[in-house]
């Protein structure tokens, strides 16, 4: 695992942008946490700058590490990922489950820096 420190002081590189998949997810390991990374190459309106979101890969409903393999999209304007097991939707921005707002996944401050994806 690469732990090379990026330009900013505390940011650490997770992977390269080329490791991401357009409009879909991959998973990175960071300090023993599994982070699902979702990539919108043209932003949430499909016409602006690229964006990346980091969210816990663990699905609390199935107890399996699968969120990164869900389909992303929007519901009533909110960016969401659907769990591939029992299909609950989680907001990419804050991890809240749309079907059960008591459930919330951890989210991570991940950013694009040049050709790298970093976690702050």
């Amino acid at each position, binding site marked *: *695992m*690469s732990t090379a420190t990026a330009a900013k002081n505390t940011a650490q590189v*997770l*992977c390269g942008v080329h*490791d991401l*998949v*357009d*409009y*879909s997810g*991959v*998973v*990175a*390991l*960071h300090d023993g946490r*599994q982070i699902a*990374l979702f990539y*919108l190459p043209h932003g*949430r309106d*499909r016409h602006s700058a690229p964006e990346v979101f980091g969210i816990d890969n663990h699905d609390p409903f*199935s*107890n*399996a*590490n*699968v969120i990164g*393999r*869900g*389909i*992303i*999209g*929007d*519901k*009533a*304007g909110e*960016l*969401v990922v*659907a769990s*591939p*097991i029992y*299909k609950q*939707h989680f907001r990419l921005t804050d991890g809240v489950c749309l079907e059960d707002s008591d459930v919330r996944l951890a989210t991570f401050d991940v950013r694009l820096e040049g050709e790298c994806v970093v976690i702050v």
Partner: protein
Amino acid sequence: MQDLTIHPEKKQLIIIGNGMVGHHCVEQLIERGATQDYQIHVFGDERHRAYDRVHLSEYFSGKDADALALGEANLHATHGVLLHLGVRISSIDRDRREILTPEGRLPYDSLIIATGSWPFVPPIPGPEVSEHPQARLVYRTLEDLDAIRHHAIHARRGVVIGGGLLGLEAANALKSLGLEAHVVEFASRLMPVQLDDQGGTALRERIEALGVGVHTGCATEEIVATPGHDYAYRMNFRGGEHLDTDLVLFSAGIRPQDQLARDAGLEIGERGGIVIDETCRTSDPEIFAIGECALWNGKTFGLVAPGYTMARTVAGCLTDVCEPFSGADMSTKLKLLGVDVGSIGDAFGTTEGAKSYRWIDEAGSGYRRLVVSSDGKKALGAILVGDNSYYDTLLQYVQNGIDLPKDPAALILPQSEGGAPTLGADALPDTAMVCSCHNVTKGAICKAVDDGCADIAALKIETKASTGCGGCAALLKQVFEHELESRGMDVDKSLCEHFHYTRQELYAMVRVEGITSFDELLEKHGHGLGCDICKPTIGSILATCWNQPIMDPQNVALQDTNDTFMANMQKNGTYSVMPRIAGGEITPDKLVALGQVAQKYDLYTKITGGQRIDLFGAELHELPDIWEELINAGFETGHAYGKSLRTVKSCVGNTWCRYGVQDSVAMALELEHRYKGLRTPHKVKMGVSGCTRECAEAQGKDIGVIATEAGWNLYVCGNGGMRPRHAELFATDIDSATLIRYVDRFLMFYVRTADKLQRTSVWRESLEGGLDFLKEVIIDDSLGLGDELERQMHHVVDTYECEWANALKDPEKLKRFRTFVNEHGGDPDIVNITERDQPRPARTNELQSLAVEIR
């Protein structure tokens, strides 16, 4: 009588007769909780469970006894009702309140006679019946139909004596069997009970145009055997005319089956029929009679709806509230030999002062008559020949006494002339009867909608509307949709918030506009980013139309995880791997290779229901290596992860089996290799059996093929699983090329018209026009789509490529198969336990105890 166990604490209720009315009575009794107080016995002298006699002629055009059967097969057992089939009651002993069967006596507290009627055969002199059964056939039971089928094998021409409703149904049956059919009617016109002279003429012209001979005003004086002649029999008519034939089928009316009641001394009408009062009680208050055997107010009723009403009356009397029987509407809407015929209320205008409007189309053999009251304000009755689309509206005017519009004639004028003023669902009062078989009013439908019925299927289950004769289906839909709209409920058929179109509409756009990517479709016709509903649906449509690899960059984000990684995700996030084992045929070498892969990667191994082998527990990063080995061993992907053809199950066929009549394995291989990879709205399963023993269970599949001596029988739209559905016979004795052509067209038509995630069985039930419509489209090419559908299928077949072989060639695609983008290896949270010598995922409690040990 060992199975006649008696619950001494319960009253004994015996129902004699297991026809449609007897069966309905049982259903009603169960629904009203009668089984708490009564031990119910049902006796039927036929060996079949209750079946739909109204649609009997479909027995020759695709439906078998099971498909005609009424209600759930385990209804009786579930509710503790004892059903005795094939048992004829010898007599009723009213003094001792017992019935006598060949097996013994059984006491009753209450008795219901629902014995129906028997076909009347006029005493026409003819050859000895025992030697010439084919000169005196009747048409009433499944056994009668088996006899007709048997005698039709070597016959060319068949004659039905009787031109009424049942006679024409019988002629249809003969025609379905490939015979030249004739109808001989004593009266001067066909259907003399329902139609007037002009209606009879129009019907006759239409039926003759179909190649059925019609002979009215003909009295048959004798039937003579003519051995050595072209035809086996000659029918001589009064006046010297004659008609030669190979078989004679009598359908000259029915008579109440009242013998048991006669022998028991119950009051019987002058011309037969067990006399009942408005509670359906006979002259013995403990004995009821219902259906065609009963005589109420001097009338018998030869239709199913009045019988059902009587059944409800009796069920009410024996449980809570007795609603008196007060006669029944004898209006009928029929399709006879494909010709629409309707007769409503006072069709002949016998009410004093009644006037008629008539529309006669001599060129097209159409006829409509509207009978109105003397003041011209109310409709009294109607006759329709050739087009029943007017029926529902006219029936509502008559039944509900709705005031006629200013120009009543408009109600029967052709609708192209500015459009007839059809009666909207909102004009119907709440008391308006929508389904007369099950007594469902518009008010009951409104209540069901209020209670949450949001689709037609749920409504049918809740109210039973349109589950009897089905004649009210169109009206039911109209009322239902109107009620939904009037409540402001969503009748939006949009796929999701991103596309305001149905799957069918999106399919057409993709095809017609040549759209090849989700982005392009979203740009042109959608909003937002898409979601987990529209992405896989459109991914499937794109795959069907253009057959691009699902792992190509523009498609990959559309797929469910199973399609993305071409394996089936299990509950712990690992995958199962299932290579294709076409037709369930596998060489020993490949079997060994499969075993070696399972050993190497420590995969749980299980044989599936579809004659394949599933390997469970593979992690994401292991999938490419596993597949590399499988492909090297000669396997290809099995599409177990896709909404696509899964397997074609087969029996071993005539290569080995002494009963087989065709090579079922070869046919299964041909089908599986032809349709593998085709993306469909939902999964598709097939089966091929080498003989009628049906070891491959083909009739439980979307496409079922059963070998015959002459070729193949094709069945469609079956289903197993949660909601089993018997497949329906679609074509018989076809050769292999025809079979492939029909299946090509069938599958492509399904892909084009089905909703998302709709199996063929549900699709078939939602098709207006049903199986007949499907046959017209596929077999007769009524929509002119045949060539196009075949061409589209050829494209898919010609461009097939194993998705796993394609992915393994491309390092970019393989990048997806990493558990972590920044670490090698697998998910540390996946823990297996060994059970029965194989790995399985650890359960939560096991994980906790493991954690304790590690600490």
